[in-house]
């Protein structure tokens, strides 16, 4: 069976999962059983079949598992978001359609040789910093929960950080491919442009208080530097730098201190000062309200979960019990309704995606492709870790999205770009009789 045929079957399975999930939600939430779930299932299938057909024409030799895994992740997201708010579910479906369109467009546009991007690496680097700066521009940026990561253009809001991440990876892949040999020698002056771009990105992040993105971008940077140079020392130095920087940030920025305090001590036995209302409150009722409520949601799921549509997210009078459920805390919603079985299955899908992505990096024939694929995949894994780890109190909670699952257009589009990149690289790696005619078609 060819990779594409496997892909098609995978998409069919993913569509079945989506249909069952949506049917389950409608049965639980609505008085009469709605046939709509099946219609949506068919639409879901149609959408991914379009992506598949385009992939068949543009990237015939690409990995056959990545697209179906993506479909499963979006199915998880769509079903949970629809369950929380049918209107948002519809909007998310629209965004997935836009994401697929972006995927298709990218595949078509770069089908011949995506490596042209390498020559524009500095453009990507500068654009990434520019995108990160956007939310700080007066009149454009919007502050949510003390963090500036939204841009409001009037007709549309978006999170430029999500796109900046992809651009930063393209820049780093190009730059590190070029300089990896000299960088490996550890001469300081070779690090110049790298430090400038990265430093700028960090400064912007500090300015916007967006710690999640800071951690994510820094992690991607270190990972790619390690892949390029093979020097564990750089990683150690980078981590030491990060620790130092974090200590400075901790002392300088109240927001950082709050996040760490919430992480270490979400519950207090005595009332402490609550900056939200200026009164003395238990911390679980004030600063760590979100985290604690989300943990209760996860714990309430237990092993098997309450079942899709039967979770408790609102009080008896309809008030929301967990804030930001569709975006930052989508994992706690899924973990409650699907239980440990469902949450572990979701994480397993993420793991499979990571394995396939890293396989692409291993197979890639050239340095730029290797670095890009490794960077994109590691970024995907790290982003999952930062947000789900935050929800699970493994690391301090910061507001970034869960790839392909969280509600939000920018995130969906950016992750479909990531998928497009991996498919393109994978296709090139597996194309028989390419420039290196002696390469076997499935080398690596």
């Amino acid at each position, binding site marked *: 069976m060819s990779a594409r045929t496997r892909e098609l079957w995978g998409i069919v399975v993913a569509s079945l999962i989506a249909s069952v999930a949506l049917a389950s939600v409608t049965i639980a*939430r609505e*008085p009469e059983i709605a046939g709509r779930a099946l219609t949506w299932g068919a639409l879901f299938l149609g959408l991914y079949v379009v992506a598949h057909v385009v992939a068949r024409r543009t990237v015939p030799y690409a990995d056959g598992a990545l697209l179906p895994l993506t479909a499963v992740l979006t199915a998880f997201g769509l079903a949970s978001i629809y369950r929380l708010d049918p209107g948002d579910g519809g909007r998310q479906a629209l965004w997935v359609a836009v994401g697929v369109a972006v995927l298709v467009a990218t595949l078509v546009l770069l089908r011949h040789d995506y490596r042209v991007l390498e020559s524009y690496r500095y453009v990507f680097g500068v654009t990434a910093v520019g995108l990160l700066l956007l939310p700080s521009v007066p009149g454009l940026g919007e502050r949510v929960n003390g963090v500036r990561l939204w841009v409001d253009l009037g007709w549309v809001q978006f999170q430029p950080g999500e796109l900046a991440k992809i651009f930063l990876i393209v820049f780093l892949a190009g730059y590190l491919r070029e300089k*990896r*040999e000299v960088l*490996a*020698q550890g001469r300081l002056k070779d690090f110049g442009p790298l430090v400038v771009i990265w430093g700028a990105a960090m400064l912007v992040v500090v300015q916007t208080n967006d710690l999640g993105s800071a951690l994510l971008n820094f992690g991607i940077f270190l*990972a790619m530097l*390690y*892949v*390029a140079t*093979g020097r564990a020392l750089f990683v150690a130095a980078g981590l030491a730098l990060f620790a130092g920087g974090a200590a400075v940030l901790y002392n300088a920025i109240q927001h950082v201190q709050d996040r760490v305090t919430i992480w270490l001590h979400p519950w207090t036995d005595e009332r402490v000062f609550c900056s939200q209302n200026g009164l003395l409150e*238990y911390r679980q009722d004030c600063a760590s309200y979100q985290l*604690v*409520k989300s*943990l*209760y*949601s*996860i*714990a*309430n799921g*237990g*092993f098997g979960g*309450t079942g899709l549509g039967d979770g*408790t997210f*609102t*009080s*008896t*009078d*309809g008030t929301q*019990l*967990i804030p930001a459920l569709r975006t930052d805390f989508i994992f706690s919603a899924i*973990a409650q309704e699907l239980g*440990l079985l469902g*949450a*572990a299955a979701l*994480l397993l899908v*993420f*793991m499979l995606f*990571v394995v396939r992505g*890293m396989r692409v*990096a*291993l197979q890639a*024939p*050239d*340095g730029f492709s*290797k*670095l890009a694929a*490794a960077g994109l*995949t*590691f970024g995907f*894994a*790290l982003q*999952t*870790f930062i947000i*789900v*780890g935050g929800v*699970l*109190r*493994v690391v301090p909670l910061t507001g970034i999205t869960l790839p392909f699952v969280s509600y939000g257009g920018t995130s969906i589009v950016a992750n479909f770009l990531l998928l497009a990149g991996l498919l393109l690289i994978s296709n090139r790696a597996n194309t028989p009789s390419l420039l290196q005619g002696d390469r076997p078609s499935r080398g*690596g």
Partner: protein
Amino acid sequence: MRPRTQHCGDQRRIATLPFTLEGAQKGMNRQIVRLTYVALTLVGVLVVMTTYWQTWAAAGLADRQDNAIKRVAEFSIDRGLVFAFEPRKRLARNVEREIDQKTLFFRRYPYGPLAAHVVGYSTVGRSRTGLERSLNDYLTASNANLSTFVDTALDELRGKPVRGNNVVTNLDLDAQSVALEELGTNCGAVVALDPRTGKVKVMASSPSFDPNIVEENFQAISRITANCTPAAPLLNRGSAGLYVPGSTFKVITASAALESKKYTPESSFLDPGYCTVYGKRVNNFDTSRPFGTIDLTNALAYSVNSVFCNIGLKLGARRILDTAKRFGFYERPPLETPADERMASGLYRNGKLFYPKVDVNVDAGRMAFGQERMLVTPLQMAMVAGAIGLGGRLMEPQVVDRIVAPGGKVIERGRPRLIRRAVSKETADAVAAMMRLAVERGTGTAAQISGYSIGGKTGTGETGVPGSNITWFIAFAGEDEESPPELAIAVVLQNQSGTGGTTAAPIARAVMQAILQGTENP
């Protein structure tokens, strides 16, 4: 595999390019494999932590008071009912309401304030108290047990609401209502139990509150007033109210004295009307009439402070406290209500229980007749009276008689449990005789009930402010002196101008009568 080109010129570098590229790519693969392990470990940690929160930590989180999600989720359970023992009336029942396509079960308490402190309440906004809180697992049928697990799983599959287990308490509703009526506008509590089994028949706390309005109109509860400030209507004074024991503590001192073998009931004392502690005089309640020569039995019956003061000085604080510990002091009395609704009795310093390392830390003379920083709960004093009446055996108090599954199967049944022998039978019987004398012709005559043998002890804890005495009466009652008592009781009142004998003893009498005569004619 890293290319060594640093010493070479450009020409050499270009010449070796194909080789170095190939080598470089293989070199990167090693890093990529390692990075894969790192990435998989990161996601693997998430799987482990999800497992932790959903299995290991789930029970602890479910028990937290601020866990609104669990609480709200449990409103879809047909919560178990709570019954009084006698008459078998529902103290808590459910009303169904359809909200958002779901049937939810909200609590109603038909008897309102009558047993509000023991039963507690279960609300969306203000969490739970009392048995509603401590027995929540049973009431929501989430107590892990194979047969109930299968039942609830089947109910869930059939789409039927899960039904909780019913709770039958030991409360005697008529006596409970007599107690609350007798307490009236006073702040105080009545605890009555069967010392033979530990079954708690009455646990009344005044002022009480209507648990039905906790959710909608909590303001009204905070506006409740009574003969004390703050009125604290939510406080279960029966098990969590700490009061100066006054002369009721002499029962413990007398027990310690007899246990020490240094005294007998006939030991005689000379009462000058006061006792000297650290060079200062400590007066009797009534200094005008010193008793002269008096034995221990009469000293307890007439509550002579100077006698107990001297015993205390002789024995030392720690020997008395050790006897008190045998009666259950310094530990939360076991009961099915939530632990933080029960307080341990003992010496308190800065709001914390403290046990002196050496005798001189405590004024043993004052402590011996229930002053010093000694604080006790009515539940504890009822246990003391019961153990004395029962020949020294201290039984575990129980307010829950049984827990019954929806099908009628009894899941848990309260069985009498001996905590320990507090004092020897000789000591207990001797102190019991002293307490009988106190009711017969001493300070507790107001508690007499014809046809019953009652032993009691009055107490008046002085706060130094007129009209703000803490008054007590503790007693046990049985058919006659030989048979074990059916009943032990403790009554406490705050802000009284009278003595225990004039204020608390009559209330104890009324409640005892309600229970004793109620059981005679069922």
